[in-house]
């Protein structure tokens, strides 16, 4: 999913449906275009003219729905947003003191102290530089950003199968891994082959490259590196290198399989950005700058497509109400749409049933003390080979009294399901036990916590749809197209599920189609 081949495939596909301009925009979106062109793509939406009236009903107050309402009402469209939950924002969910975690069968109330830095983002949390629509809307709506530390070499790698379960600093792991690898190549019996392939000067440069990359000595041997941190010494005395880790133990770890290069993945980076005060501040800003009505606690009952409009029936306080509009934009999760009465065309309905839904879980723990900062960790992520996968240290509130740590970010589906079957108290207990393998006094700092299993959250029952490229070949085009006057939106029709940028891109994609259509229809009526 993150390799360049699939990105190329994506671009060629975009080219097939949208022409070269679309390819260019998509390339910008993927961060592939020259830096100078990283301007945000504007919504391709013209203001309605000549007294033209057009109404749009938007299903779901997720970020794509809100962005559409924001753009459409500025172009003169009448919009109504219908949301099933008690809150808006969909999976853009920031948990603070007193918040309801609306989990099916396990509703929780967040017990964090009421303090601006005590929160965690249960949904999207980090924004890379090339997510241009996110930056565009944060800037336009006046939503301040700050740095999110996504990669911190001073954080820990801890795995049951390596180093006797003892945590090692990420920097030590990486320095030693590179040292061993480069020494192996430098000592390779095939060195003659290199020399046959390259000129003597090139071979020499290659040797220097290896030395530099692995911090090898003049003879091409790895004897430890200051990059790993020092065993002893100080500012005023000479430092001694650490003895390199045991290479076999390094190989036992799974850290090198993906986590070691995490910040290099296409949608990741070492420093990213986060919304100051919590991701949902962008949602609140959208809501504040939208005039259209947003109905909450109004689950959709039926979607009736007709030639000249769409009728949506929704349930408000136990009573059915109907709304008719010229167009319907829908960011309800596809797997829940199957439970809503509709007259979608059969292939479209079938494609909705093929969307595969992700199962992720996050656990936030309020800590009485920012003990990780005493370990020299300011933001960033520790990686464990345990069920909790990761521990995130907050990239805000540094040196404050307390902090909220992300005590688990589980993205292995079966583990998420197993955790979701536990009671919230049992989940916390398990997360705390596992965290203690990295931070021995972990349990003593935990004051309270909440867990958010997305596969069990009301009105969601899943998150980012991580289908295979093969699956997507089968159903994506169908779902990206309209069904009459109905358009599906959200990260569910993006190749970058789970990213707000995917949802916003889907919104702009749909707006561009709507724009063409409104113009055509205006022409037809004239």
């Amino acid at each position, binding site marked *: 999913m993150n390799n360049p081949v699939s990105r190329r495939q994506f671009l060629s596909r975009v080219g097939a449906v949208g022409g070269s301009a679309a390819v260019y925009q998509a390339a910008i979106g993927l961060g592939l275009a020259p830096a100078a062109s990283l301007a945000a793509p504007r919504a391709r939406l013209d203001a309605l003219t000549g007294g033209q009236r057009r109404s749009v009903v938007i299903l779901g107050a997720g970020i794509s729905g809100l962005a559409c309402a924001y753009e459409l009402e500025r172009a003169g469209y009448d919009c109504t947003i219908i949301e*099933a939950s008690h809150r808006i924002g969909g999976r853009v969910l920031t948990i603070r003191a007193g918040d309801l975690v609306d989990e*099916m*069968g396990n509703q929780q109330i967040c017990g964090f102290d009421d303090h601006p830095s005590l929160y965690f983002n249960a949904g999207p949390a980090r924004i890379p530089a090339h997510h241009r629509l996110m930056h565009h809307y944060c800037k336009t709506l006046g939503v301040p950003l700050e740095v999110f530390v996504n990669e911190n070499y001073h954080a820990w790698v801890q795995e049951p199968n390596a180093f006797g379960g003892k945590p090692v600093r990420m920097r030590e792991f990486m320095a030693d891994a590179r040292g061993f690898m480069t020494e192996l190549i430098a000592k390779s019996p095939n060195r003659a082959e290199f020399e046959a392939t390259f000129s003597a000067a090139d071979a020499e440069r290659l040797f220097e490259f290896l030395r530099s990359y692995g911090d090898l000595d003049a003879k091409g041997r790895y004897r430890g590196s200051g990059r790993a941190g020092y065993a002893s010494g100080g500012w005023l005395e000479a430092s001694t290198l650490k003895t390199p880790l045991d290479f076999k133990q390094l190989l036992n770890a799974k850290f090198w399989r993906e986590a070691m290069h995490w910040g290099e993945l296409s949608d990741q980076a070492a420093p990213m950005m986060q919304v100051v005060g919590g991701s949902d501040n962008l949602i609140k800003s959208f809501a504040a700058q939208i005039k259209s009505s947003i109905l909450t606690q109004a689950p959709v009952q039926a979607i009736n497509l007709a030639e000249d409009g769409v009728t949506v*029936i929704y349930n408000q306080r136990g009573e059915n109400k109907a709304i008719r509009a010229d167009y319907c934009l829908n960011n309800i999760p596809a797997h*829940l749409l199957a439970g809503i*009465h509709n007259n979608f065309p*059969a292939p479209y309905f079938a494609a909705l049933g093929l969307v595969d839904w992700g199962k992720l879980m996050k656990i936030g723990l309020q800590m009485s003390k920012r003990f990780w900062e005493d370990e020299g960790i300011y933001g960033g992520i520790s990686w464990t080979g345990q069920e909790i996968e990761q521990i995130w240290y907050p990239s805000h509130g540094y040196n404050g009294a307390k902090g909220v740590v992300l005590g688990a970010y589980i993205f292995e589906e079966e583990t998420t399901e197993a955790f979701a079957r536990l009671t919230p108290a049992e989940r916390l207990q398990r997360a705390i036990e596992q965290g203690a393998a990295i931070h021995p006094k972990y349990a003593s700092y935990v004051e309270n916590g909440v867990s958010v299993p997305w596969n069990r959250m009301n009105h969601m029952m899943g998150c980012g749809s991580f289908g295979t490229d093969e699956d997507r070949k089968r159903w994506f085009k169908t779902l990206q197209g*309209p069904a009459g006057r109905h358009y599906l939106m959200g990260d569910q029709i993006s190749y970058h599920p789970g990213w707000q940028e995917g949802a916003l891109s889907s919104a702009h994609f749909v707006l561009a189609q709507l724009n063409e259509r409104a113009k055509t229809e205006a022409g037809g009526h004239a």
Partner: protein
Amino acid sequence: MRSLRRPPRVMSTKRGSGLRSEFGRTLDDTKRGFPFPAGLGQRLICLLSFAAAWMPFAHAEENLVAAPPELNHCAVCHGVELRGNPLVDAPNLSVLPPWYAQRQLESYQDGWRAPAGSPDLAGREMQPMAAALDADGIRAATAYVASVPKYAPPPSVQGDAARGEGLYRTCIACHGERGQGNESLSSPPLAGQSDWYLVRQLENYRSGARGGVPGDLWGIQMRASTAVLQSDADVRDVVAYINSMSATP
């Protein structure tokens, strides 16, 4: 993989209330097809060309049953009017008689169905929902189930219905010749139930994931009865036969 493409059929039952078909679509409707766009360009061209392609749509706000506000979450998984949604493992509740719906909610509470550690993983998802209900909640949920129109979802299980008819003979005594159920024997109706759900429950009984808890006499009896089903094929065949009962008057 899961497919919802299969055409639904118009159904009715002996009891006369009639099972509604899905959106009134027929096989012919789905065959007629829809000019399905392959790309944006094509999409824009066909925008103007799909007049008259729409399926009839029977629902108006006045003839749709709205979930009571405190039970909205039931419909998130079980769907509007509780028709079931295989994508989230939620069976069709619309065909359940109130006494059976009530007993299943109580069974979850009593630890008969999907107790902690049970291999019935979908049941484990329902268990906390049922556990959260008090007696009034169970009454309200049961009344909600009773209030929705009966509906039979389109079949999705392939099997040899003729062979299944032979296997079903064991089931007749309790569940009835037409799969209509029998309250006096505490046997639920089978006709019209989501077929994938019937398969899963039969598998649960066969494996002991259901009907293995002391005290759950009905479950224990049902588990013993599934001894007649010796293979996965047997399960599919008997369910295919139940589907055929649902589909013929």
